[in-house]
C-alpha cells in the first residue's frame, strides 16, 4: 500500500529538480569514484528524500547508465546532468571541498545547470496525467484523448507515444470480426457451440438467458430466477394458473431386459418399508409413474442414494411377453453418478456397448458427427444449416457436459449374465413441467393430436415414414383415436389433481408451431367442456387405461427420425408467408411432423391434511430437438415460466424435501451442504465485523451448516445416560420398568391411561415386525436390556440416516398430533392407532434408529418467519406454562452469551500489528524471512465459533432438537412455515415429556436472533 504510494510519488517527482547541497554531495561522490575505479571524477550525488527503493535501484544501475552522460562531453564543464533531471553538478574533484571564492565560471556553470534542471521540470509533464491534461482549459478540444491531431503540434509527439502505450494496456480485441459478422448465423452457432463445451445448455437456453439470471450448476446452465420481480406472481401461477418449468436437465437412465431380472436386481436397492417399490402393480403395468428412494444395495436404512421417479413402458399388446421390458429412471443430475454406478453393479452391467446391431447406439454417429464439426470448423466459408448444427452440438454437449467423462466413453452397458442393458439417456429427451390448474387447458389448446395419414400416395419422399407405417395398422390407429379422445377429455377436467397420481398418457401430436396464436393469450378453462358427463367421471375414477400409456417416444429409432425431420422455423415461416390468404391455417398434409410425447401427471401435495393436491400438474416428455417448438406455444397460451428458485418454492409449499438440499444422508446432499456453508461463510466474511451478527454471542454454534452427526450423537448419548440411570434404579428389568414409567403417564389427567397388557402386546408385535425386517439387527426385547451396552457400541459406529419407514413415520405423526389422537386411531383401526406413546415404544425407536433424523414440517403459532438453518428447540416447562396463561405470549428469549474468542482475536491482532511494525523497522535487514509464518496462521473469524463445537444440544438455554432447512413466510398458509429435520431420539424425548394437549410444540430460533418463537411440529405421511 504505502509502497505503491511511494512509487507513484516517485514517478510524479522524477522530473522535478531536487535539492542541491554540499554535504550530500561528498559522500556519494566518493563512493561513485570508488566504483568507477578512479575514472572520471564527476557526479555529485543528490539526495532524494522521497523515493527509497527506486533511488537505491538507480544507484545500483549507475554503472550502466554512466556512458550516456559522458556523451555530453562537448561541454567543457564538469557539470553534467543526470538523466532524471537530477543534479549531477560538481566542481573539479580537487577544488570540491569548500569554494573559497566565487569565480565567474563556476557561477555560470551553476546557473546553467539550474536552468537546464528547471527546463526539464517545466517542459515535461508530471507523469500521472495525460498530455492534453497539461493544457489550460481554453485550449482543450473535444475528443482530444483519442485524436492526436487535435492537440497543439508541439504536444502531438508526446501524445502519440502515450496513445500507443494506452493501446498496449487495453485488452486485446478478441473479436476479429465486426459486429455484423458476429451476428451472422454460422458464426453465432459456432460461438454457441464453443460456449456449450463446459456446461450443457438446455434447448431453451437462449430463451432463458434473455429473461433469467443464469447460474452454472451441476454441469448445466440453468435459469435461477426471472429477472422480473415475480415471486408472488409465480406463486399465483402455481395455485390459480399455470407455471412452466424446463426440467430437461433431469437425467434419464434406461434399463432394458427381462422383467424378473430387473426387478430382482433393483429390489436390493429399495425397501418395501419406504413405500411402493419398482414392483408396484400400477407402475409395473406402465399405467402410473412411481417414485421411491434408492439405497445402496442391501444397506437399507443407511447409505441412501437419492430419490427417483420411474416409469415402466407399458406392454403394447396385452398378450405381450415380459421378455423385453423397458424402464426409465428419472433422477436429479447430482445423484446420477452414484446411482448409475450402483445400478450398474447391481445389474452386473459392466460391459460397455461399443456397437450393436439391435440397439440404436449413438456412439459411432458421435464420432462421425464430431469429425463433421471439425471439418466444418476448418471450412469457414461453408454454410451450415441450423439443423446440422443442432445435431452436432447435442452429442458433443452430452458427453462433455459431464466433465469427468471423456468423449469416447460409452453410455450403454450390457450384462452377459442377466441380459439387462443400461443406457444413459441424459439430454435425449426434453422434460417440461406444467404446474397448476390451467395446465389442462394449456395442454389441450397447444397440442393437437396428429391427423391420421389416409392416402397411399406420395410414398417416395415423405420423411415421416414411421407414421405412415403406424397408420397402416388399424390397431394402432384405433389406439391413437382413444388416446386422442382421452386427451380431449382432459380439457374438461378442472384440475390435474383430480386425475389419479402419476397417470401416464402417451400421445402423438402434430407440429405445435402450426396453430400458434397470433398473440400471446391466456388459455382459460372452458366451462362448457367441464360438464360432468359419464366419460369424464370414468376417467377420474379409473385413470387412463393401460393401453393409452403407450407412446412411440420409447422407440429410439422413431425419436431419432422425428428429431432429424423437424422442419426449420425458417422454412415454416417462409411457407406461412407464401400462403394465399395471409394469416390462414397452414396445411402441410403428410409433410407435417408427428411428435410422440408422453404426459405424466405429477401429484401435488400428497402428504398432510390441508391443501391436498396443491401444485399438481403435468410433465411433458418430448424427443430432443423439439424443445423450443413446444416451449413457445405453451407460453403463448399463458404459462408463466419459473426457474430453479420457483422449483424450490414449489417443493417447499408442497412440504416435500427438495433435491439435493434436503437429503443430508445422501452424498449429493452432503456435498451441497458443504458448498452452501462455504458460500455463506464467504458472504459473511465480506462484511465488516461490526456489521454482521456475532454468532458466538447469539449462541448459534453452526449458522451456516447443520451438524447432523453431532446432533444425533448428542441426543443418543443423552438418552442413553437417562436410560442408564433409570435402569440402575430398577434393575429387575422390563416389566418393572414398564410399570414404573406407566405411573407418571397415568398421573397426567389429559392422557388416557394405557392398559399395560395392551402395551406389552403391542411392543412384542413391534419387535417381531422389526425382526423380520431387519435381520442384521437381532434386537429382541429380552436381550435388549442386557445387550444394551453392546448395542450402543454397535450403534455408535453406524452412520446418520433419515427415517423413511412409512410405518414408523405414521406412528410418529400420530404421536405428534396434539388432539386428534382418538380420531386417527378410529380411522386406522385398532391394530396400529392404539399404539400409545410409552417408554417401550420409544425404546424400540431408539434402538433401531439410534441416530436417525426425521423430516418434519413446522408452522408458527403466531409471529415470526423462519429462515434456513434456524434451530428447532425443546421448550422448557415454564414456556409452556406461560403460553397457556397468555395466548399472546411470543416466546422466551435466549440470554446473551459471552464471546470467549473476541479477546483472543483482539490480542492476536495487536500482536500482528506489533510484529508488522517491528518488521517494518528491520525490514531492510531481515527481508521477508520473518513475516509469513505468523501471518499464515489461520485466524479465527470474529463472530464465529472456532475450533470444535461444544455440546450442541445443551449449548443454549433450550435443548436443540434439529434444524430448519427450508423456511419462509408461506403465502399458501398465511404464516411462517418451516421444513427441517429433527433427531428422532430427541423428538421422542420431547413428546413423552409433554402433556398430550400441548404435544408437538417446539421453539424456533433463527441463527441471527435471540428470540424464540412457538411452532407446532407435524410429520406428514
Amino acid at each position, binding site marked *: 500500500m504505502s509502497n505503491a504510494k511511494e512509487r507513484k510519488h516517485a514517478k510524479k517527482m522524477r522530473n522535478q529538480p531536487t535539492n542541491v547541497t554540499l554535504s550530500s554531495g561528498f559522500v556519494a561522490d566518493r563512493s561513485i569514484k570508488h566504483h568507477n575505479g578512479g575514472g572520471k571524477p564527476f557526479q555529485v550525488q543528490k539526495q532524494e528524500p522521497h523515493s527509497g527503493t527506486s533511488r537505491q535501484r538507480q544507484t545500483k544501475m549507475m554503472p550502466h547508465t554512466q556512458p550516456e552522460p559522458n556523451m555530453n562531453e562537448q561541454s567543457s564543464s564538469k557539470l553534467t546532468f543526470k538523466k532524471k533531471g537530477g543534479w549531477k553538478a560538481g566542481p573539479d574533484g580537487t577544488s570540491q571541498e569548500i*569554494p573559497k571564492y566565487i569565480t565567474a565560471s563556476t557561477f555560470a556553470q551553476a546557473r*546553467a545547470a539550474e536552468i537546464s534542471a528547471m527546463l526539464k521540470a517545466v*517542459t515535461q509533464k508530471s507523469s500521472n496525467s495525460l498530455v492534453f491534461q497539461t493544457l489550460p482549459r481554453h485550449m482543450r478540444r473535444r475528443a482530444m484523448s483519442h485524436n492526436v491531431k487535435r492537440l497543439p503540434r508541439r504536444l502531438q509527439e508526446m501524445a502519440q507515444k502515450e496513445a500507443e502505450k494506452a493501446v498496449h494496456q487495453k485488452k486485446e480485441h478478441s473479436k476479429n470480426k465486426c459486429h455484423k459478422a458476429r451476428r451472422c448465423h454460422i458464426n453465432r452457432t459456432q460461438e454457441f457451440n464453443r460456449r456449450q463445451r463446459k456446461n450443457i445448455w438446455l434447448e431453451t437456453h437462449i430463451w432463458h438467458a434473455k429473461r433469467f439470471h443464469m447460474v452454472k450448476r451441476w454441469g448445466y446452465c440453468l435459469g435461477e430466477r426471472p429477472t422480473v420481480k415475480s415471486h408472488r406472481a409465480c406463486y399465483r401461477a402455481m395455485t390459480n394458473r399455470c407455471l412452466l418449468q424446463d426440467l430437461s436437465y433431469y437425467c434419464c437412465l434406461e434399463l432394458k431386459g427381462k422383467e424378473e431380472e430387473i426387478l430382482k436386481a433393483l429390489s436390493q436397492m429399495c425397501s418395501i418399508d419406504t413405500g411402493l417399490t419398482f414392483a408396484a402393480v400400477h407402475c409395473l403395468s406402465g399405467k402410473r409413474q412411481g417414485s421411491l428412494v434408492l439405497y445402496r444395495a442391501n444397506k437399507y436404512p443407511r447409505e441412501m442414494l437419492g430419490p427417483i421417479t420411474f416409469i415402466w413402458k407399458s406392454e403394447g399388446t396385452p398378450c405381450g411377453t415380459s421378455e423385453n421390458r423397458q424402464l426409465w429412471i428419472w433422477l436429479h443430475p447430482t445423484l446420477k453418478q452414484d446411482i448409475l454406478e450402483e445400478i450398474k453393479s447391481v445389474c452386473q452391467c459392466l460391459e460397455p456397448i461399443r456397437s450393436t446391431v439391435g440397439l440404436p447406439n449413438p456412439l459411432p454417429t458421435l464420432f462421425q458427427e464430431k469429425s463433421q464439426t471439425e471439418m466444418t470448423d476448418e471450412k469457414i466459408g461453408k454454410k451450415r444449416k441450423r439443423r446440422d448444427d443442432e445435431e452436432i452440438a447435442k452429442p458433443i454437449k452430452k458427453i462433455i457436459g459431464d466433465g469427468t467423462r471423456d468423449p469416447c466413453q460409452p453410455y450403454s452397458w450390457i450384462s452377459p449374465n442377466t441380459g439387462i442393458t443400461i443406457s444413459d439417456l441424459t439430454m435425449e429427451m426434453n422434460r417440461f413441467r406444467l404446474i397448476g390448474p390451467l395446465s389442462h387447458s394449456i395442454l389441450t389448446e397447444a397440442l393437437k393430436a396428429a391427423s391420421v395419414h389416409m392416402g397411399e400416395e406420395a410414398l417416395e419422399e415423405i420423411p415421416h415414414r414411421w407414421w405412415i407405417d403406424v397408420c397402416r395398422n388399424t390397431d394402432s390407429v384405433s389406439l391413437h383415436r382413444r388416446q386422442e379422445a382421452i386427451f380431449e377429455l382432459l380439457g374438461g377436467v378442472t384440475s390435474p389433481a383430480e386425475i389419479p397420481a402419476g397417470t401416464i398418457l402417451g400421445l402423438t401430436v402434430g407440429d405445435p408451431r402450426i396453430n400458434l396464436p397470433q398473440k400471446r393469450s391466456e388459455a382459460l378453462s372452458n366451462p362448457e367442456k367441464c360438464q360432468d358427463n359419464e366419460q369424464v367421471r370414468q376417467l377420474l375414477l379409473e385413470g387412463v387405461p393401460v393401453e393409452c400409456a403407450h407412446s412411440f417416444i420409447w422407440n429410439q429409432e422413431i425419436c431419432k427420425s422425428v428429431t432429424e425431420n423437424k422442419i426449420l422455423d425458417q422454412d415454416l415461416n417462409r411457407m406461412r408467408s407464401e400462403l394465399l390468404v395471409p394469416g390462414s391455417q397452414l396445411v402441410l398434409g403428410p409433410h407435417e411432423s408427428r411428435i410422440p410425447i408422453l404426459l405424466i401427471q405429477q401429484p401435488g401435495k400428497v402428504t398432510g391434511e390441508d391443501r391436498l393436491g396443491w401444485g399438481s400438474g403435468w410433465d411433458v416428455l418430448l424427443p430432443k430437438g423439439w424443445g423450443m417448438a413446444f416451449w413457445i406455444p405453451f407460453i403463448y397460451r399463458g404459462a408463466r415460466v419459473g426457474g430453479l428458485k420457483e422449483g424450490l418454492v414449489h417443493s417447499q409449499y408442497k412440504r416435500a424435501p427438495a433435491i439435493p438440499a434436503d437429503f443430508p444422508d445422501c452424498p449429493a446432499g452432503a456435498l451441497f451442504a458443504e458448498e452452501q456453508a462455504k458460500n455463506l461463510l464467504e458472504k459473511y466474511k465480506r462484511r465488516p465485523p461490526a456489521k454482521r451478527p456475532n454468532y458466538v454471542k447469539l449462541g448459534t454454534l453452526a449458522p451456516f451448516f447443520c451438524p447432523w452427526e453431532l446432533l444425533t450423537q448428542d441426543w443418543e448419548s443423552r438418552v442413553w445416560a437417562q436410560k442408564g440411570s433409570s435402569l440402575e434404579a430398577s434393575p429387575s428389568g422390563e416389566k418393572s420398568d414398564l410399570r414404573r414409567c406407566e405411573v407418571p403417564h397415568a398421573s397426567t389427567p389429559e392422557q388416557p391411561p394405557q392398559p399395560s397388557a395392551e402395551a406389552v402386546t403391542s411392543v412384542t408385535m413391534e419387535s417381531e415386525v422389526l425382526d423380520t425386517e431387519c435381520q442384521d439387527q437381532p434386537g429382541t426385547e429380552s436381550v435388549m436390556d442386557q445387550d444394551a451396552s453392546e448395542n450402543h457400541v454397535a450403534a455408535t459406529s453406524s452412520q446418520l440416516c433419515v427415517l423413511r419407514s412409512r410405518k414408523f413415520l405414521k406412528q410418529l405423526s400420530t404421536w405428534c398430533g396434539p388432539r386428534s389422537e382418538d380420531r386417527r386411531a378410529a380411522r386406522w383401526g385398532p391394530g396400529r392407532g392404539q399404539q400409545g406413546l410409552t417408554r417401550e415404544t420409544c425404546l424400540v425407536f431408539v434402538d433401531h434408529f439410534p441416530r436417525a433424523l426425521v423430516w418434519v414440517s413446522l408452522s408458527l403459532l403466531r409471529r415470526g418467519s423462519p429462515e434456513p438453518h434456524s434451530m428447532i428447540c425443546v421448550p422448557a416447562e415454564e414456556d409452556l406454562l406461560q403460553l397457556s396463561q397468555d395466548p399472546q405470549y411470543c416466546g422466551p428469549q435466549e440470554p446473551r452469551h459471552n464471546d470467549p474468542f473476541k479477546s483472543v482475536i483482539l490480542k492476536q491482532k495487536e500482536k500482528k500489528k506489533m510484529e508488522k511494525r517491528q518488521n517494518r523497522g528491520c525490514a531492510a535487514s531481515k527481508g521477508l524471512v520473518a513475516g509469513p509464518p505468523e501471518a499464515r496462521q489461520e485466524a479465527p473469524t470474529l463472530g464465529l465459533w472456532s475450533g470444535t463445537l461444544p455440546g450442541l444440544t445443551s449449548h443454549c438455554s433450550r435443548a436443540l432438537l434439529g434444524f430448519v432447512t427450508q423456511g419462509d413466510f408461506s403465502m399458501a398458509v398465511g404464516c411462517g412455515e418451516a421444513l427441517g429435520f429433527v433427531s428422532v431420539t430427541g423428538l421422542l424425548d420431547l413428546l413423552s415429556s409433554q402433556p398430550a394437549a400441548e404435544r408437538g410444540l417446539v421453539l424456533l430460533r433463527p441463527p441471527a436472533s435471540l428470540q424464540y418463537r412457538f411452532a407446532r411440529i407435524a410429520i406428514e405421511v
Partner: protein
Amino acid sequence: MVRFKHRYLLCELVSDDPRCRLTLDDRVLGCLVRDTIARVHGTFGAAACSIGFAVRYLNVYTGIVLLRCRKEFYQLVWSALPFLTYLENKGHRYPCFFNTLHVGGTIRTCQKFLIQYNRRQLLILLQNCTDEGERDAIQKSVTRSCFLEEESGEELSDSDDEATETVA
C-alpha cells in the same frame, strides 16, 4: 478544482561568505525561517504559517531557495524574510540576506521565472566579463543552457524509455 492554494516564494540567498553554504540544508533553512516568523509575528504568525510551510527547492551553488506556504498567510512569511540576517553553522554566524525574486501560485511558474532569470544573469555576466578564459567558460555554459532546450525533446524520449524499463 478543489485544492489548497499555495504561494511559492522564490528567493535568492545572498552572502559574502561562501562558508555559510557548507551545511545549508532544507531542514536548517526551514527552522530558521520559522524562528524568524515567530520572532517577528509572534505565536499567531508562527502558527498561521506553520501549516503547509515547506522548503521545496534549494540550490547551494546558486543560492536559490523555493519556499511554500498557504496563500492566506504568505504575506507574513514574505514580510518575515528580510529579518533573516544570518545563517548559523558550527557556532559561527555568517551574515546573509534573502532577495525575493518572484512570488508564484505554482511551482511551475516559479520554475519558468527562474529560467528567465538565470538566463538574464548569465547574459549580464557575459557582458561584464573581462577575463578571456572566464569569458569562454561562460560562453559555453550559456550555449549549453540554450542548447539543452533543443535537446530536451530527445532527452525526454530517453528518460521515458528508461521509465518504462524500470516499471517493467
